[in-house]
């Protein structure tokens, strides 16, 4: 190779280590796709569409609908909540306060999901702290059923996914000069108008990144529904695990996985079209 060619290609060598990892994931994904067309006990030799046809069964359909519903609700809540938090983080000037906010936000990422789930169990139970506060202050007469319901699962999913949203959004917000907001205010825009007309459009790259991360994360939620659902909240990842583990039906699990991934991509694609349409008034 000529020296020039070597120089041109040199940067791509830096991709090599990550590329190896990516390759491993890609290969195993491809294997999963192949598996989905196989038969139980004859996984690599057979070819069948039975696993895909089985997806029309009630338990699977319910699982997909529930998974998507939980993910959509949780993602929407996360994005809504993360905007004021990100704004606060981006605009606060005191370095101490900034670090404190960042620490609180990132906390869920430091703690094992399993341990967090046990924490939620004690928080959300009928005699847990949340209910004690609500009943004790008189807001409700009887403790709310939060644990082992979809509501409880969604609450925990939102808390866990929040840092994934706050980081890219506050990063995008930091790149918006304060003078833009000040200019809009001086031109007559009240605070909310400034946010809607100037901040949100300019933060769009960050919002999009947050959406991708959070939606992927929520659709693949496994531990939280497993521990906090009490057996009543069954998501597709849990069904996959059931097929892969106790039921030893790898091809069925693989088919579920493939469809889940395709659905995720579809959801994100639809949202992407919405985004590119723009909100120019």
């Amino acid at each position, binding site marked *: 190779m000529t020296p020039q060619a070597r120089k041109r290609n040199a940067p791509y060598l830096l991709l090599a280590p990550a590329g190896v990892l990516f390759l491993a994931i890609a290969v195993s994904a491809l294997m999963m796709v192949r598996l989905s067309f196989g038969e139980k006990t004859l996984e690599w030799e057979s070819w069948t569409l039975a696993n895909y046809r089985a997806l029309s069964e009630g338990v699977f359909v319910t699982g997909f609908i529930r998974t998507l519903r939980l993910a959509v609700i949780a993602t929407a809540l996360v994005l809504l909540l993360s905007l004021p938090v990100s704004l606060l983080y981006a605009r606060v000037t005191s370095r101490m306060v900034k670090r404190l906010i960042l620490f609180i936000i990132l906390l869920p990422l430091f703690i094992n999901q399993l341990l967090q789930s046990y924490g939620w169990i004690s928080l959300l139970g009928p005699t847990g702290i949340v209910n004690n506060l609500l009943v004790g202050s008189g807001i409700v007469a009887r403790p709310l059923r939060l644990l082992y319901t979809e509501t409880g699962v969604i609450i925990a999913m939102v808390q866990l996914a929040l840092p994934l949203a706050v980081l890219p959004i506050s990063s995008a917000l930091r790149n918006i*000069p304060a*003078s*833009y907001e*000040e*200019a*809009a*205010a*001086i*031109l*007559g*825009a*009240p605070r909310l*108008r400034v946010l809607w*007309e*100037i901040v949100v*459009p*300019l933060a769009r790259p960050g919002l999009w990144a947050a959406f991708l991360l959070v939606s992927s994360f929520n659709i693949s939620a496994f531990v939280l529904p497993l521990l906090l659902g009490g057996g009543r909240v069954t998501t597709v990842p849990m069904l996959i695990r059931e097929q892969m583990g106790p039921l030893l039906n790898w091809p069925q699990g693989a088919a579920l996985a493939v469809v889940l991934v395709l659905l995720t991509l579809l959801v994100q694609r639809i949202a992407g079209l919405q985004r590119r349409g723009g909100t120019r008034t």
Partner: protein
Amino acid sequence: MLQAKVTGVDPEPGRGPRPDVVLAVENLTKTYAGASAPAVQDVSFEVRTGEIVALLGPSGCGKSTTMRIIAGLEDPDSGTVGLKGREITDLPAHRRNVGLVFQDLAIFPHLTVAQNVAFGLRMKRLGGAEISRRVDDMLRIVELPPETFRERMPGTMSGGQRQRVALARTLVVEPDVVLFDEPMTALDRRLRDRLVIELRNIHKRLGIPAVYVTHDQESAAALADRIAVMRAGEIIQTGTSLEIYSAPRDLFVADFFGDINCLPARVVRDAGGAMSAVIGDRTIPGIVTGISEGDALLCIRPGQLSLSSRPSERALFPVELRSWHFDAGVFTYYVSGQGGLTGMTKDIVVTSTKPAPDVGSGELWLEADVRDLQIFPS
């Protein structure tokens, strides 16, 4: 005889609001948390109908803070801001009808030129056709033909064009007063001169009073009707450019407004009780007022000095020519004092449109009219 004239600070206390006063800033004080000194200290000034007032001073003098308080972006600790007779000190920024052209222009990058200019009009809830008409009119005033520039994105435009968009956006909502935050800083000489002329024309045409915040004395003098010189949070002197140049209140102001030579001198009281200035071995009577005995500085502008080969009654003392250059019609000479002028580290600067006498090894004398000498305490 020259007195150190104090032009004073507007307005006179105790008078009611005058009808031609558009913006009245009174006794503004603000100290930022954790700061050792106030950013703005008892600042007061007025802007009258059709006037441009400049807030001039070095970085950190408080001019930007004052401007931000007027705009509503900061709250003062005390003091008031009045606009067209009503007090706006407690009003949020979006209700003040003040215009502000930012230093970085703050043009919204995701909107077209027309959308940028229309922004303030939309906030006033005007109709679409009316907005369109006003936007086009204003674009023509700032010399950005609407047909070409309406749909352009700001990112594709030059700095000068973007500045006009910022101007159009600010003026189209017809604010009661416009604030300019150092608009010339990023421009080169030629663009700056052009912009000064354009701003003056637009200002004359629209008649909106303005406050021009800058550290650049030249553009302040070219643009503003009156200048308020600020330092360390206070207004030191207010007046026209000529007033301040002729009678600067202190050395800081004198030095800010163009080159000035300062010679070490002493103020002494003679037998008869009169005050004189002593420089080197020359005593100059009758030019000292309001300064007590002691060390002082005798200051004079380069253009007020001249050089001659023979001593006359205008001669101050002999000097030696160190170097000189010629540029655009002006000779600049650097001379050093002899005969007892100790303590001078810099050369004295003399400017003239005529060449200095050719003296060979002869004497060279520094001349001036003693009435042009200004004296400041050291």
